[in-house]
């Protein structure tokens, strides 16, 4: 199995979760109100009241063969709106 970690703006969460569903993954986990810094600058939650949102951290455990469809739908989103995605190995407990 593979573990995919995605970190991106909360504002783009909906299309990303849709892409995960469409790739055929059996599930995902979302942590919101995440902050950070990346190539496009720092993201804080101090403007959260404005609806601007902070980042979200999405974890997906999926079969290796689903990586390719995930990659092809997520990469354009991440490169247009910002955010990072990483893959590592994981085995069911």
């Amino acid at each position, binding site marked *: 199995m593979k573990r995919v970690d995605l970190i991106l*703006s909360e*504002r*783009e969460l909906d299309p990303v979760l849709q892409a995960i569903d469409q790739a055929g993954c059996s599930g995902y986990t979302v942590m919101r*109100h995440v902050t950070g810094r990346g190539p*496009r*600058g720092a993201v*804080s*939650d*101090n*403007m*959260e*009241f*404005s*609806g*601007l*949102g*902070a980042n979200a951290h999405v974890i997906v455990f999926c079969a290796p063969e689903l990586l390719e469809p995930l990659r092809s739908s997520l990469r*354009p*989103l991440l*490169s*247009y*709106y*910002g955010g990072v995605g990483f893959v590592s190995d994981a085995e069911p407990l």
Partner: protein
Amino acid sequence: MANPPPSVKLCSSAAVDTSLILQNLLTPPVLFFFLGVLAVLLGSDLEIPAPLPKLFSLYLLLAIGFKGGLELQHSGVGGPVLLTITAAVLMSLLVPVYSFALLRWKLDGFNAAAIAATYGSISAVTFITAESFLDTLGLHHDGFMVAALALMESPAIIVGLLLVKLAGPARAEAGQGMRWGAVLKEALLNGSVFLLVGSLVVGVLTAANNPQGAEKMLPFTDKLFYGALSFFLLDMGIVAAQRLRDLRQAGTFLIAFSLGMPLFNAVLGSLIARGLGLEAGNALLFVVLCASASYIAVPAAMRMTVPEANPSFYISTALASPFPSTSWWVYLSTWPW
């Protein structure tokens, strides 16, 4: 609704007493704002953690909308009302256009359009603070000004996006397809805009059908308002001070813009207000609508629809906008209207 005479303290004569003005500015909301600024400048770890500020921003939008709705129902939508609202909406369409033209001088199309849109829109918090300032002065103002406030966000967002489309650089492929639906959704259904307009409608309906219910809302929407505003401004002070650094990094052009443009819009707004024959309180609120820039609804919409623009630019300039506009406003408030 009776129109109380403008406070003598303030509008007495040409002999403006500046210390009197200063005293009037030492209100709890303003003082708590500067307490927040001070906390950041001194390096205190004072923090109002998310989502508590959201509680206050939702509350303020709901309360301002509801109270505006009650008053709008009482005042009706007579001639001056429609005229004023129309003028406000026109300003929210016009301001982004000339702001964009000016900004393009130094910035790319994406950033110019995003900043322009925030200046077309308004800062609800500045408006609210001005209202409660007017209350302290005893200067009458009308509920329909809230309707103007509510109607200025959406057009500014749409103009901003049109500017990107028409005058901006060609865009990358990614999100092209879903664009226009998303734009209109952001412009009209943005959570803050929706809550403000919705509460206004709830207020109108309640005032018309259920005066007793309106009465029972007042301890929440009215009595608490001033204190809740003070609390929220404490957070705004913290945020504004934290973002000050962003503004400094944005360079002298943007700093000059964020000081000059609100001032220009304030002057233009006060001329229009005079042309419309608005009475003192409404005129001053009109100036705030024209001069202030949105740091609630519009940045959220821009983040989504113009991701190419740098949020720290349009947020920090918008956060700076109250200061120059306020100075003009305070100057104006000493006029013999």
